[in-house]
């Protein structure tokens, strides 16, 4: 693990779990989905947290007590890394590498990043599609067999891009699930869709009815995090995902 980023374990961490990532990105899909998973899955507890001078001077207060903005929750089968603050482009590599290397040390069997893919005129779309990209041809084949559409060509920007590349390099099976979503507005419906696909792929059962019922409350609550995330996405040149790639080979 890098010296500038430290992950401190608070409880015993299971080995052989699936590790999920819910980080601020377009539509806050990953964060909303992660927050729902924490409340819905049984025995999800904070098992570890990140400590780093690279992070902004910020703590999150819950019930009057300080918490790191980047924490890992877990039960027997799942580990879930979630960030309550937008992560700036200049520290994202160190943060993601530290989390991935920590996950590898816990012999996780797969890493899955939950996120979104922005689509124009999202408000006109009734059925949202979910796409997947994987770290290896074998993992890609597995999700294809489960009926998930593959994101064939294009650019990917953000934590999920780093996760896929790093996992491909170290030979750890990894997936990114991307639900069609709003670029600049919190999108609980997209979060529900990404969780449905997660169930299809991993068998982790999540009831999304509460998430959909609370949609308006989530949209109102998530405005400030969305605004901060927009600023970071713009610095990260997130709109590159709209670009048409020019492949050399």
């Amino acid at each position, binding site marked *: 693990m890098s010296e500038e980023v430290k992950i401190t374990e608070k409880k015993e961490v299971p080995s052989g779990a699936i590790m999920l990532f819910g980080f601020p990105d377009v539509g806050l899909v990953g964060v909303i989905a992660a927050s729902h998973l924490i409340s819905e899955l049984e025995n999800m507890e904070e098992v570890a947290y990140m400590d780093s001078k690279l992070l902004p001077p910020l703590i999150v207060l819950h019930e009057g007590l300080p918490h790191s903005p980047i924490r890992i929750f877990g039960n027997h089968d799942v580990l879930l890394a979630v960030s309550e603050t937008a992560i700036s482009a200049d520290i994202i590599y160190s943060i993601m590498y530290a989390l991935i290397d920590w996950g590898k040390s816990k012999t996780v069997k797969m890493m899955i990043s939950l996120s979104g893919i922005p689509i124009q005129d999202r408000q006109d779309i009734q059925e949202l599609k979910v796409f997947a990209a994987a770290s290896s041809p074998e993992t890609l084949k597995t999700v294809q067999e489960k009926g998930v559409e593959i994101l064939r060509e294009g650019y990917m920007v953000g934590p999920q891009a780093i996760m896929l590349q790093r996992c491909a390099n170290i030979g750890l099976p990894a997936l990114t699930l991307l639900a069609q979503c709003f670029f600049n507005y919190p999108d609980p419906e997209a979060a529900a869709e990404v969780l449905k696909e997660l169930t299809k792929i991993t068998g982790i059962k999540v009831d999304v009815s509460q998430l959909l019922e609370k949609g308006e409350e989530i949209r109102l*609550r998530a405005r400030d995090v969305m605004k901060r995330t927009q600023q970071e996405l713009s610095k990260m040149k997130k709109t590159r995902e709209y670009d048409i790639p020019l492949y050399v080979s």
Partner: protein
Amino acid sequence: MAIRRKRSIFDIIDEYFEGLEEWAERFRETLIERPSWNQKTCTIEPLRDIMVTPTEVIVTVDLPYTEENMIQVKPLDKDTLEITGRMKRKIRFDDFGITQYKGEFQTLHCHTRVPVPVYMEKMEVRFKKGILEIHLPRKHEYEIPIE
């Protein structure tokens, strides 16, 4: 071929100051941090976005807890819109577990500046899935002739 309208020195000075004003507004918006709510006016600032296409400007605003008949869109001048949406329920800081501030809100409110000239009077508005969409046809005042 397009005909170029002659601009007077006063038009140019006016445009210069308008541009300067716009820049100052953008600067103020990006650099001066302020909360997204106002206790005095009991309003919450909604998230919004602007897209400029060759034919129109599309302003979208995320208005949770509102309905079509509870929204008001008012042009304040030739390039500023005021958007107000009354929410179906009152929101208190307590609802979000926040106890250090007091106050309740029932209105989403914002001003938004349109970056290019538009026909305000031809504005079309629709509301879908909690997103307000305002379409403003663009006004093309000058065209540069291609020789």
